[in-house]
């Protein structure tokens, strides 16, 4: 045991791992370094545009994640417990947005929910106009980010030994109780992991939001859009890195908190 452990951390692996860590660390260090020399993080933090964008980003990403959990958990459970060729096909279809470039996702949303889209006329008749609204931001994020949660939840439910649920059912538990008291706790680590991925992806969403929701401060301009907008401004890189560091800091704090929550509690580890 002890011998195999020291083999695993032998120099070639160690230096390769170190290089890989540096690959991730250097750009982040560069961002913080550039923001501290060129940028003005304090100004970026208090600027109305940044505050609005940050508030909008946190609100929409959280709402997106809540929707993904509420709508995605039952769907993933159904797909995982009613195993068939159709359910496997559907599960694969629902993962497609993972490989679509976000700009394509934005176009796809326009073709469905835009004014000239499939549902354009019925929506207009009902007085509903989605594009350029905060609702469109959430829809874009949901389309792009929810598949991360769905995939994790599906995997979690599918890898649970079905005998637990079968036993619970024979003991007289209703299907709802089986889901709530047996399947859900067993799949919990997978669900929380998917939730974190979904939230992180929603927070970083850019391409689909830009095309489907536009970019207007206070209404649809989330942090990634504000960063692109700042990069195109006369402040250029200095303005963009300042806002980017603010987003980085908030995302880091929230990710640490979510990961801590994921580990801290849970009846089955």
């Amino acid at each position, binding site marked *: 045991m002890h011998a195999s452990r020291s083999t695993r951390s032998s120099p070639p692996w160690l230096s390769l791992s170190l290089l890989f860590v540096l690959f991730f660390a250097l750009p982040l260090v560069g961002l913080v370094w550039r923001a501290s020399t060129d940028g003005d993080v304090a100004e970026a933090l208090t600027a109305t545009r940044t505050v609005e964008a940050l508030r909008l980003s946190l609100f929409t990403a959280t709402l997106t994640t809540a929707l993904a959990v509420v709508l995605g958990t039952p769907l993933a459970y159904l797909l995982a417990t009613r195993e068939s060729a159709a359910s496997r096909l559907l599960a694969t279809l629902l993962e497609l947005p993972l490989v679509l470039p976000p700009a394509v996702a934005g176009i796809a949303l326009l073709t469905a929910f835009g*004014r000239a889209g499939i549902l354009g006329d019925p929506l207009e008749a009902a007085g509903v106009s989605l594009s350029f609204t905060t609702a469109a931001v959430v829809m874009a994020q949901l389309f792009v980010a929810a598949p991360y949660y769905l995939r994790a939840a599906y995997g979690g439910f599918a890898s649970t030994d079905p005998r637990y649920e079968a036993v619970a059912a024979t003991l007289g538990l209703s299907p709802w109780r089986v889901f709530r008291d047996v399947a859900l706790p067993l799949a919990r680590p997978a669900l929380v992991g998917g939730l974190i991925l979904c939230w992180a992806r929603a927070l970083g969403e850019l391409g689909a939001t*830009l095309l489907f929701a536009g*970019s207007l401060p206070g209404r649809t301009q989330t942090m990634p859009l504000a960063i692109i907008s700042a990069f195109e401004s*006369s402040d*250029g*890189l200095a303005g963009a890195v300042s806002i980017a560091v603010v987003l980085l800091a908030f995302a880091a704090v929230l990710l640490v908190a979510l990961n801590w929550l994921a580990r801290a509690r849970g009846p089955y580890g």
Partner: protein
Amino acid sequence: MLLALALPVALVGTSCGGGDGHTVFAASSLTDLMPDLIEAYRDAGGEGHFELSFGGSQTLAAQVIEGAPAELFIAANEETAARVVEAGHRLREAPLWRNHLVIAVRADSDIDAIEALAAPGVRIAVGAPDVPVGALTNRVLDLLAEADPATVEAIRANVVTEDTNVRVALSRVELGEADAAFVYRTDIEAAANEDVRAIELPPGMPATQYVAVLLTGASAETESLFDFFANHRFDNLVREAGFDVSPSVTPTPTP
């Protein structure tokens, strides 16, 4: 039409190619014109292989300042050219052509004049205030507000998106998502789309001045291309694309 919307987004952050040509950075509003100009330069006996890279003027300026190996930069306004000059990247500089703002609407739209944009519920796409087309839109609206502040206030309230790329703003009108967009006249010419028409602004509105900056380290071949532009050798092509080639009212000083 949908691809037209995707393309500008794909171009965000596009950097210069790693080929062996001389890199030329040009504002994205020159995307269709530049290849024709390079061809005309070749036909006129000009030498050199050029790699064209298009993007928002501000993005390109930032890339030049960050050390991108470009030899010529054509900015869509004087302010952006000045950023590169102030950062010490200028060999030479010349004013080129001007571009006027128009209102793009769908061909079947009821909108017939700028005042119609003030009606409630009209959705307007504009350039972000920091990119040249957005800055020009603000100047035009400020000027109009001197005569009719209430109308301009209503127009500003109808803005639904501030795009960093003017082609994205135009695509929103083409798709019918927005009712109107403030774009360059050349964008409508380039789109050559029968679904979209241009509404002219009242006379006397400001225009944006394109500026060519020959960057430090430029090759002799790139300087020769710069001279062709600076001497307005291709103005017939440029005029056909919808640019204003009449002499600038406030000429940019050339050192």
